[in-house]
């Protein structure tokens, strides 16, 4: 079970990073990246199939939120933060 969900989980993580890249404003972009990383790391050693399935479902849900917000964020212009210059 753990082995079979591995590619799916890694695919989800990749999707999160891609969604994060869509954000135009630096703060949101970094937040999504950081949040995805922390939540994936937090459940790194999860072995129970039901818990994993539940987490994957939650991640999918959150991914749609991130993608939608990224799209909305890209509609508006943002000044570059001093860090990006």
């Amino acid at each position, binding site marked *: 079970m753990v082995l079979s969900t591995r*590619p799916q989980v*890694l695919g989800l993580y*990749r999707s999160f*990073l891609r969604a994060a*890249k869509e954000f135009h404003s630096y703060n949101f972009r970094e937040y999504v990246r950081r949040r995805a*990383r922390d939540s994936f790391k937090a459940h790194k050693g999860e072995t129970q199939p039901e818990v994993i399935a539940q987490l994957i479902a939650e991640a999918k849900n959150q991914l749609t939120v991130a993608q939608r917000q990224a799209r909305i964020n890209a509609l508006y212009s943002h000044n570059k933060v001093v860090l990006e210059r």
Partner: protein
Amino acid sequence: MLRPTMLRSAAARCLSSVSRAATARASFVAMAKPATAALMYTVNGSAVTARMSPTALSGCRYYSGAAPLTHDKIQERVLDVLRDFDKVNVDRLSVDAEFYGDLGLDSLDIIEVVMAIEEEFSIDLPDKVAEEIKTVPQAIEAIANAEGAI
């Protein structure tokens, strides 16, 4: 009441002066034409060659594609990306390093590294290809095969 008429007369004056200037120039050209034409005609051959000479062309700008990516260039840039990535074990970084064993990265780190490499070369690798990248040579090969890498 005053203003429109003033404007109209000003406009008319403007127009007439422009047309007068135009006719003046036309007549000047007409007068000067035989001489310039003869001059142009005699100089024609050498003038054209002068315009095509390399010194004249050096002022032009050519927008062509960037130089093609060579294996060495890709390798250098991939290693730079890896060096900048904070979790990479830089001591064991080499041209044939494995991400897992040599560089001490976990699966999530590898995804991040591959994304950083994609960004460096402005490409979007398909998930299938990106999943397969586990070593530096594999990354180089994937970039070399990707279309539009710069």
